[in-house]
């Protein structure tokens, strides 16, 4: 399960592997910030097409493991209400050397942001709210993920 309604804690991603093979551990944390397009944010609500999102994230991990020699990939993405400073998405990639861990981490967050059916609604201090469309259309379907 890659989606969770529970608070994501960074300590969940800090453990060393038991046989100390890992030389590089890249942890990406996407966090809720207080400002969006000049407006003060109070919190976000995340919604997902859960069955499809779970399957796609699993396939993205498989794809990353096929492309780079990785020891471990762990992903958690929030659904429900996420407050300022909380973690919305966490991606942990472990490998022997740093280059493949950085590349795989970047690959995974970009695919999650632009492909996986998850949506966030921003709630602002002025009482308004809006679904974030990330200022973009859907990414071309011909792009493989």
């Amino acid at each position: 399960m890659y989606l969770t309604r529970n608070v994501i804690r960074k300590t969940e991603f800090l453990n060393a592997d038991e046989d100390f093979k890992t030389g590089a551990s890249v942890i990406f944390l996407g966090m809720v910030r207080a400002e969006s397009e000049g407006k003060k944010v109070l919190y976000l609500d995340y919604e997902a097409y859960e069955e499809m999102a779970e399957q796609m994230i699993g396939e993205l991990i498989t794809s990353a493991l096929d492309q780079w020699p990785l020891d471990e990939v762990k992903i958690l993405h929030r659904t429900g209400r996420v407050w300022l400073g909380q973690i919305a998405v966490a991606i942990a990639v472990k490998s022997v050397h740093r280059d493949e861990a950085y590349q795989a981490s970047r690959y995974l967050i970009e695919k999650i942001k632009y492909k996986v059916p998850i949506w966030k609604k921003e709630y602002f201090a002025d009482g308004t709210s809006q679904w974030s469309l990330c200022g973009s259309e859907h990414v071309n379907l011909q792009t493989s993920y």
Partner: protein
Amino acid sequence: MKVTVKFFALVREIAACDEATLDLPQETSCEEALLHLENTIPGLFSILRRCLVAVNGRYAHPDTRILVDDEVAILPPVSGG
């Protein structure tokens, strides 16, 4: 044929429901299903132009034919992360 279509995010809010049952001709394409939905719920007109359709949990091409018992979902531009 009757096909249940799931809505998410902005589409769900405009439609004011999580899903709707459409009565579509046999072998309707995803693109045709979107047009049918536009006529059924006119408020969706502008957002549907930016949506993709998923069939059975996979992004579907506009020409993909919808079959009885398929799970169809309307996906507005995503914004995870």
